[in-house]
């Protein structure tokens, strides 16, 4: 293996990423077998359970609790009680209502930002890996440039000058700047797959480039692609929380990062109003942590070498 290959494969596993460098050849037979292992994998079930629970809360919360996230509904600075499950903020806003609405924003950012990043990463990675040559050189250069630029710095300067800030544009910008490691990993794997016999066979039978990529190459790393999306989802949520916390989040809505921003801004810390800043951070930690653990579980499901029997 040449050094650049080792380098590239290594980038496929950032610190928090999937357990092992994915074996390219793991031929996942979709359906039965994977499902059998999936149902018996405790990490996967546990992680999925937590994420789904939060999703349910995000969907149902605002329906159960009629208050808007920024409405002044009760006495200020109340501890959690039967009336206000998570207490109230310094201005008498319902922390639970903010939390539920913030969860919605979190899932939206993760889904949209992670999805867009996965899409761009796949397009760039497959194109570079399949076409090779000059196209590869150019795309690789682009990838390397975006890779070293700190995402937050770019988002900082964009968010400062854009005046209307909603959750959707925020997610789009996050997605547009967090794809490079995906592109590198997919490019490296496409390279190693394109010289396989089954790809040659498809080419002999007259299939076009796009068809070969989507029918022959992509299915061979479908499990990896899915796991990548989960990691991107988690990453987008964390990036959005960071942006919101700096004060560059949605101006019209509510998000978990914004809740923490408000709590710190209005000195919830010295006042000891823990119910204001504990739920949003805990929510993010549990969702993202569960996604990571779910990913380890998925890795064990898809990769026979890791299965515990």
């Amino acid at each position: 293996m040449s050094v650049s290959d080792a380098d590239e494969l290594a980038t496929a596993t950032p610190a928090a990423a999937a357990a092992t460098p994915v074996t390219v050849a793991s031929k996942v037979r979709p359906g039965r077998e994977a499902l059998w292992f999936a149902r018996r994998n405790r990490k996967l079930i546990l992680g999925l359970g937590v994420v789904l629970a939060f999703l349910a809360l995000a969907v149902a919360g605002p329906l159960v609790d009629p208050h808007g996230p920024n409405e002044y509904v009760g006495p200020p600075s109340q501890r959690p009680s039967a009336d206000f499950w998570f207490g109230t903020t310094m201005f008498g806003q319902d922390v639970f209502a903010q939390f539920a609405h913030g969860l919605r924003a979190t899932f939206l950012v993760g889904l949209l930002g992670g999805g867009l990043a996965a899409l761009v990463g796949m397009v760039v990675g497959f194109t570079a890996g399949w076409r090779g040559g000059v196209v590869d050189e150019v795309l690789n250069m682009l990838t390397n440039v975006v890779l070293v630029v700190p995402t937050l710095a770019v988002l900082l300067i964009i968010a400062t000058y854009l005046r209307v800030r909603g959750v959707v544009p925020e997610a789009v910008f996050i997605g547009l700047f967090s794809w490079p490691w995906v592109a590198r990993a997919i490019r490296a794997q496409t390279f190693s797959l394109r010289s396989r016999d089954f790809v040659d066979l498809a080419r002999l039978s007259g299939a076009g480039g796009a068809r070969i990529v989507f029918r022959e190459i992509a299915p061979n790393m479908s499990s990896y692609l899915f796991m990548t999306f989960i990691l991107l989802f988690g990453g987008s949520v964390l990036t959005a929380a960071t942006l919101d916390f700096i004060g560059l989040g949605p101006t019209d809505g509510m998000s978990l990062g914004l809740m923490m921003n408000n709590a710190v801004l209005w000195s919830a810390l010295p006042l000891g109003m823990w119910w204001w800043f504990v739920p949003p951070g805990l929510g993010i930690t549990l969702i993202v942590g569960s996604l990571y653990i779910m990913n380890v579980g998925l890795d064990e499901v898809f990769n026979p070498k890791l299965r515990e029997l």
Partner: protein
Amino acid sequence: MRHYFQRKLGIYVLTFFVAVTVDWMIPRFMPGDPVQTMLARASLRPEASQAMQAYYTGVFGLDVPIWRQYLNFWGALLQGDLGVSIWLFPQPVTGVILRAVPYTIALLVPAILLSWWAGNKFGAFAARRRWLDNTVLPVGYVLTATPYMWLGILLAWALATVAGVFPIAGGYSFDVEPSWTPSFLADLARHWFLPFASLFLVGFGGWAIGMRNLIIYELEADYSHYLEALGAPRRLVRRYAFRNALLPQLTGLALQLGVLVAGALVTEIVFSYPGLGYLILQAINNQDFFLIQGAFLFIILGVLVANFLVDVVYVLVDPRTRVGMRGAA
């Protein structure tokens, strides 16, 4: 090897070029007039506003053709001129930033190095030890999933507000004068500890997990099995595995730099620590666009330099880079 560094340096120079261009472009091509936007928010008296408008139009150089503006921007930049801060008018942005940077570096560099070192050691130790592994895995994943600022908030709340062991905010107490005396340095260290600890902990979890996973992967490799079959002691095999696993972790460090810097920025905000992050917050709240643009360039420059350092270290520790880069690859 020469080729390797040339390539890497080329990418960094190109990145810096793109970053500067973006920095120049965004205020000019975003909808609306940047000078108008800035002044509208400053809410000044009409005559003052007019004077400022004339001044800032001159600073932005909006009255010359666009290519000229771009060249002027580079010219000023290369002389270290990033404009004048609006929030701290009339201090130059470069000076304001240079005063904040040491705090950020003092926080970031020890946190990165120590968490990387300790996380790797601990992860390697925990791998394949059933009891330890079962606790390290979930704890590590939860730690990496923790938003930096939240861990900072929790530490500040628990150890400063409730326990009162550490100060809750600031770089040093208000009642001491900055000087090189032991009492001031002790005060500085006490204020430094909590932000450092929260950065360290989040990083530690990530590196420990990464190393644990890599060690397990390495122990499955042929050379490990071969060594075992030869009857090599377990410790020796693990040592070889550790050395091999360090390389991807090093690449991971380069990849994580941007995230780590972002983490440091928000941690500083939690603790009102007078570094770059706190400065950025003030700049955003005061609509100080020049300061934000300057901070953006500083962050990019810092990350690029750090990336280059990682590249150098990589060549030093991986003999294959030296051989491979001299040859065909």
